[in-house]
């Protein structure tokens, strides 16, 4: 199984988007549950505990994905095998897209109240 962890393996083509998908489901599901269990007062703006948790998870996920982008780029430069370089570069692109997607989707937590 250790070969799957190498950043030149094509499993990383889906790694970034899997992380993005888990984060996406978590923030949507978490938001729904939080709004059912402990909704903040409707008078409050975006600065609520829910938004802070969502924002932190967004930043954390984006940082992880950006690090993986960098690591894939490095792996692509290290390998001499064309196939491995191809997958490392493609994976880097997809990790980068996933990081951008995380920030873009998560950005509204800065200005929208969570449960209205």
């Amino acid at each position, binding site marked *: 199984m250790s070969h799957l962890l190498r950043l030149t*393996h*094509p499993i990383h*083509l*889906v790694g970034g*988007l*899997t992380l*993005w*998908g888990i984060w*996406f489901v978590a*923030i*949507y599901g978490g*938001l*729904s*549950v939080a*709004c*059912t*269990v402990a909704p903040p007062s409707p008078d409050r703006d975006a600065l609520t505990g829910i*938004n802070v948790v969502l924002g932190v998870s967004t930043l954390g996920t984006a940082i992880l994905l950006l690090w993986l982008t960098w690591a894939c780029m490095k792996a692509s430069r290290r390998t001499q095998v*064309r*196939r491995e370089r*191809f*997958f490392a*570069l*493609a994976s880097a*692109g*997809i990790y980068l*897209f996933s990081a951008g*997607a995380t920030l*873009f*989707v*998560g*950005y*509204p*937590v800065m200005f*929208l*109240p*969570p*449960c*209205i």
Partner: protein
Amino acid sequence: MSESKDASLTPETRRLHEGLARVWANPRGLGALTVVNHTTLGLRFMATGAVFFLIGGLLAMLIRTQLAFPDNNFMSNETYNQVFTMHGTVMMFLFAIPILEGLAIYMIPKMIGARDLVCPRLTAFGYFCYLFGGIILTSSLFLDMAPNSGWFMYTPLSSGDYSPGSGSDFWLLGITFVEISALSAGVELVVSILRTRTEGMALHKMPLFAWYILAMALMIVVGFPPLILGSILLELARATGMPFFDPAGGGDPVLWAHLFWLFGHPEVYIIFLPGAGIVATLIPVFARRPIVGYGWVVAAIVIMGFVSFGLWVHHMFTLGIPQLATAFFSAASMLVAIPTGIQIFVWLSTLWLGRPVMSLPMLWILGFLVIFVLGGLTGVMLALVPFNWQVHDTHFVVAHMHYVLVGGMLFPLLAGLYYWLPQVSGRMPSERLGKWSFWLIFLGFNITFLIMHWTGLLGMRRRVFTYDTAMGWDIYNLISSVGGFMMAGGVALLILDVALHFRFGKPASQNPWNADGLEWAMPKPPTPYNFVSLPRLETRNPLWDAPELPRTILEGQHGLATIDHGRRETWGSDPLTGKLREVIHLPTNSWWPLLAALTLALVCISLLVRLYPLAAAATLVAVGFLLRWSWENGAHPKAAPDATVAPGQPPLHSRTMNGPGVWTMSVSHLANGSLYLSLLFGWFYLWTVAPEWQMPAASPLAWPLLVGAGVALTLGILLLAKLVRRLRRGHDASLGTGLFVVAILGALQSVLLIGTIWLAKLAPTESAHDATLLVALLYILIHALLGALLCLLQGLRVGYGFVGAEAPLEPVVVLRLWYYNLVVYWSLFVAIWVMPTVLGGTS
């Protein structure tokens, strides 16, 4: 190029051709029903899909006739409801998906250098499920019982209270039946692409079309099960009154919307991706240069496949979801524009840097580019929540949807039709008729649907069967109807062109478009075995880099050029590198797929007419047929009793521990897991969101029985895994006995689960909690029974000598099922017993 009669071939090569023709022969007459070959079945899929397209198109013409004039009484409102529901249903489920799957079934082995798909009997089974499901569903039109709740069957409109006839049942049962077909094709396409590419075709060298189909097939595997679950729940609700979607019983109608769109949005991309695959195949051929940015396209495909699963709520913006949640989905919906844009720019760059030649297929590609880009732009508009609210359920949405689907799927499909027609028939279509057909369809389409954007912006809601002239929509609707009939005229010309070309078309040369793809390296029309010999390939453009391939393949100069063994064979290769791993021996013609599908059709009809004992009996017979089918595998006399292979060749796949069967089981579990996760989603959704959900203070399930069942399952796995480890070392002593013991443990698990259900005294018709619990318990019970049954059969097969140290594959496949059961069982135990017990009985 003519076959074995080719005078330049040596006598030895001619004997090889004759042997291949004998072993791969398709029977005629009644025996044609036993054919399992991908070429024949792919064509059957496409021909059947074309018939359903005509039915769906006829329904569209009825809709446009009704809407052409205000206050029109051409149809009653009830008939109109049935017509628009069936138009959407037929086009989405009986035309778009199956015809694209048919194309993939036909093309993929030819493009990747294989002789057939990896599970030929599954191809045949899938076709018959599609055919019978489609017939059952469309028969409702002639019985005046057609569904009338719209193609997405929203509850409560589709429930027993508001749709009391059989229409919704036809939809739910018919579509579920058809989806068996989609899933079976999805699974085998994934495994075939990953494991049967010809020698040397590494993953990053395979044709882009194969990447697109791989993504589509995986999306089918993951995306269809939520709808299958939703359909099962809704049919249970209609047949027995289980309140999954009834707020009074603790259910929630929005759960249906979630389950439907969890399927429905990816469905759009499932339809688009093969279309884009056709575009990515044709553009380099007509630009006369390799595609620009192959890696970019692969990345875009992967991104599109994933992101499309994160958009489903954008169909539900008006359901009262909090702004922040809608903002997430709005942003995710806009993101899809990025991979789409990458592909568009790659195609444009390829044309820009190439030396494009204009031809009939290219005309359709240009039509695609125009229409699809416009549809994509209105898609970004609809991703904006405030705009979406304004135009929701209006003709604007209908126009957008048709721009995306007709532009993204029909135009590329017709480009592909004209491109590959010579490959199928050996003749060229008429350029003149083809151009007339294109312009009629292109102009007719835009006249119909461009105008419909305005009709929608003026406030005309979809699904209204008539309108008052004071609304000011008259002229727009009339123009749309005229355009619709123009388009129908174009389709009629297209049919005429295709029909005439079989008789009058000019004979096609070996490679009429000077294409690069391997599918042009075979005789035309293709033989059932595709290639006489399987070449080693390390290029993305085989016929450009090695134009002699058609000849050398025909002369048997490459791999697997033997037939004395009498087996149907293709290469089994490494999914990443394309290095050879096995010789896959494929099953030959069989009645079992037809019999199994026929019996399932009987199940479907019995459920429709509510003859439940007959449905139960037919289910048992169907299971019997499927198991009998599985009996003819491995070392069975009808499969590969003799494991001898030519010197230097890898072993037969059934004599290894990692044959394609293991992959097929694993990919099937992706589908199964998706269904299970949808069920878990339903459980937690109702628990947290449904206003009247009642969680009892204490779980009604007896934990000692549940734990006992889990222990039996766990012990069974431990023993089965040990048996497989011993097999891996070449030891099969006591294998049969061990498998029987595992079967007994599976049976014990089943008995304990039945006891749990019996003692729980659930009231599934009164509470959504009990109904969901019952479905979850039945789900793991079915798996427990299946695990026990398969181990029992494996034990018997050891006794017959079909499984053992020499043929060790099958226990490995069954072990995958048991691992799946283990994960599902204990996670479900946590979800339905531990969590409610720990968190307590709150709603």
